[in-house]
């Protein structure tokens, strides 16, 4: 059970009744968040779009049965998205690496005029180099801005274990991106 009122409950209920305005409002509120989560977990924009569409398909299918108070909708949405991402990561692991998204050359250093997009690409590659659980911890806490208790519950680990995953992930990223110091 969750405490307090879930700001998404009413929209989910109406979407479950087939209310078109609620459907559009829910997409406007959540799609960007779902897409960013999937893209940072998978490192591939096209796959992330597929995951986002599958996630919302599950939302529409489950919305009529949504039980307010049983869980926070945003947390449920993250879980569904992550499950779909892990399905794909698992399939990648079972297949030859030919199916992995391209990992381009990191490119020049900042002193040679690295553009913001190129830095973003460096970060994407570095994120994909992390073990999935470390990546998940960083995506949930840093990018999705979930609280540590919510993120730990979502990952099924203790807060201490979450902090360990975060620390190891951030340490690895700092090492991989060491040449980008002083961007701001």
């Amino acid at each position, binding site marked *: 059970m969750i405490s307090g009122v879930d700001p998404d409950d009413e929209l989910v209920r109406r979407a479950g009744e087939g209310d*078109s305005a609620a459907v559009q409002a829910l997409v406007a509120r959540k799609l960007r968040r779902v897409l960013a989560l999937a893209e940072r977990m998978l490192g591939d924009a096209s796959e992330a779009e597929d995951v986002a569409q599958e996630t919302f398909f599950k939302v529409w*299918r489950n919305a009529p049965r949504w039980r307010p108070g049983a869980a926070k909708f945003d947390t449920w949405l993250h*879980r569904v998205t992550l499950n779909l991402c892990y399905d794909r990561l698992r399939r990648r692991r079972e297949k030859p690496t030919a199916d992995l998204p391209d990992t381009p050359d990191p490119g020049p250093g900042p002193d040679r005029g690295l553009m913001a997009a190129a830095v973003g690409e460096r970060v994407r590659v570095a994120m994909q180099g992390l073990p999935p659980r470390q990546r998940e911890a960083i995506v949930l806490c840093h990018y999705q801005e979930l609280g540590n208790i919510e993120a730990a519950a979502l990952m099924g680990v203790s807060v201490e274990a979450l902090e360990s995953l975060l620390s190891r992930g951030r340490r690895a990223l700092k090492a991989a991106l060491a040449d980008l110091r002083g961007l701001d």
Partner: protein
Amino acid sequence: MTEERFLQLASAYGADLARWPEPERAAAAAVLASRPDIAVAVLAAERDLEAALARYAPADASPALRHRIIGDAPHRRAARRGWRWLAGAGLGLGLAASCAAGVAAGFSFAPHSVAHLFGGPRGGDDLSSLADPFGDAANG
């Protein structure tokens, strides 16, 4: 708060104290005030990382994706109530007169069926399955 705990929190949550666990922020601020050298040495490295992380911003959803997602949603017909009333009337008349046409009308006037969307088992939506998707959390 010990310096060791401060360093643990910085390495996990980064340079912005607003992202640290709320119950520990005040103590962390006290450490910062008493040891400003830590702010320079430790938090600066975290800020550098966060400046890089901020550059990784996935593109917004395309209109085509939005269209597909909204198209997947169940849609209630605009005149649903009116059609329901007509459907009921049709069914009533059909039943009263044992009229097959009335029964057919009752079905055809029913709200747009979304049974194919809602009828399946939850399956992969089981949220308890996420705890350790690869079974190797300890190695993550």
